[in-house]
């Protein structure tokens, strides 16, 4: 008798629990509506007890002792059912909430990763329209007077542009590759600015294979050239030096400037912010780009940690 009673009650209870779990799976109430769950819990308990009562009373209608026992145990039975059901609801709510949260987390991470990649792409792609149009203008002038040089410059400009497009696929390049690419850019700028611009690149060949993010140096050089060329009317020299310090590739670029008229606070200007941003996105460090203005020389130093 006890076994049948227990079995029926428990079977109904388990059914109710499964029902609740399914329900919560499809419909998770908002936090403010949790008290609804309490009502639901109570209601289901009552239904379970009622059904149990109907079934058991039908089976054991002749057994008066049992009926008395059943009526007496009704409160205990209900409380137990209610508690159990409540526990199940609580656990499912917590479980489903946790699942939803972790799902949201993954989605957020995915979105962040995507936007980070998009941002990196954009930062690499920042080609100055000034550079492009002025280069084309120089070529236009050369075509009439020095066609051979015009051809050479078309070649250089094409190689430079191809480099911008090609390199986005693999993000890291060797110092050697990057400097070759940089040389294309410098050659074009020298045609544009003639004798006003002189450049020097100094580094040891043992550093050839060190790695750095592709197209990182060109915006730094561009910044130095603009800063130098537009801040004085004289001839200027831009120099780049690469060394290895501890486990970092350290690159120093210097350009002249006029301390009286430029505003170093904002004057680090032009492209350096994008370089800083890129290194931050790659290394999560903000101390990899530093600048120094001393007398009339402006120095930009970047550190690239080596794996």
């Amino acid at each position, binding site marked *: 008798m006890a076994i049948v009673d227990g079995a029926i009650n428990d079977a109904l209870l388990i059914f109710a629990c499964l029902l609740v779990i399914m329900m919560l799976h499809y419909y998770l109430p908002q936090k403010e509506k949790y008290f609804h769950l309490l009502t639901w819990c109570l209601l289901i308990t009552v239904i379970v007890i009622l059904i149990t009562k109907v079934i058991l009373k039908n089976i054991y209608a002749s057994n008066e002792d049992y009926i008395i026992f059943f009526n007496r145990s009704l409160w205990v039975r209900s409380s137990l059912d209610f508690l159990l059901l409540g526990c199940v609801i609580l656990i499912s709510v917590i479980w489903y909430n946790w699942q939803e949260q972790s799902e949201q987390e993954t989605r957020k991470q995915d979105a962040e990763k995507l936007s980070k990649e998009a941002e990196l792409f954009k930062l690499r792609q920042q080609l100055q*329209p*000034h550079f492009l*149009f*002025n280069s*084309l*203008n*120089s*070529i*236009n*002038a*050369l075509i*009439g*007077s020095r066609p051979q040089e015009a051809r050479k410059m078309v070649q250089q400009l094409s190689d430079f542009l191809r480099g911008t497009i090609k390199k986005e696929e693999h993000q890291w390049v060797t110092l050697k590759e990057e400097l070759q690419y940089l040389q294309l850019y410098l050659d074009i700028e020298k*045609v*544009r*600015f*003639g004798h*006003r611009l002189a450049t020097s690149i100094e580094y040891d060949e043992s550093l050839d294979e060190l790695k750095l993010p592709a197209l990182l140096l060109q915006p730094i050089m561009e910044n130095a050239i603009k800063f130098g*060329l*537009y*801040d*004085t*009317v004289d001839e200027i020299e831009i120099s780049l030096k690469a060394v290895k310090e501890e486990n970092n590739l350290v690159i120093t670029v210097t350009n002249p400037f*006029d301390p*009286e*008229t*430029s*505003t170093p606070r*904002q004057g680090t200007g032009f492209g350096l912010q994008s370089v800083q941003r890129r290194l931050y996105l790659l290394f999560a460090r903000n101390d990899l780009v530093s600048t120094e203005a001393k007398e009339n020389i402006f120095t930009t130093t970047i550190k690239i940690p080596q794996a």
Partner: protein
Amino acid sequence: MSSKVIIIDDEPLARSIVIEYIQNFPDLVVSQVCSNGYEGVKAIQQYKPDLIILDIQMPKINGFEMLELIENPPAVIFATAFDEYAIKAFEAHAIDYLLKPFNQDRFEKAIKKWREQKNNSNSEKQTKQLLDDVSLTAPQNQRIVIKDGSKIKIIPIQDVHYLEAADDFVKVFTKEGYFLKNKTMGHFEQVLDPSQFVRSHRSYIINLQQITRIDPYEKDNHVAILRSGAKVPVSRTGYPKLKSILGL
């Protein structure tokens, strides 16, 4: 009768292509080619050209800043690679503007436009309007360029202590004394960052960074004491403006 032309551009090849195109006009004579605004100012004073072909992005002072320094600017055709912010101003007030690279035909069209307008328009007034428009849209209004005798002075905006109206000019006060700029107070009030510069009085604009205290002065009026010790009048309407921005 031939016309005098001056070409001002910092890139040698950009200058040479213009010289090449001009050779097709027998009546145009290139008086001088300049590689920056400083040379430009001198050459314009010396030759008084009828037309200048002017680049915008140049060392030290840009093409617009150079024009500001010239008292009676001649007709200008702009030649620029990419100055998006100035396009509207060009369209409204410039004789013409050439986007680099440009070809012979396009250049001839610009010269034709200039010839058509030469006699019936006031290029000086047009240029002034253009400069006003540009200074409102320019991405960085970080400095004031002034001609001090034969020297050109570039004053970073944060070095300005205060401005004072002086007839058709504005006195720009810095630690080295004042310099005269041929603009109006209204212009500076529009152009300067309002969280940094406040018009404290009909005739004064103060750099807030420079204020040490504000004292009462006579009846109803106040005076701002600057770090330099200068006393700048604050009017009855200027005082509440200053107070609210300084958060007093």
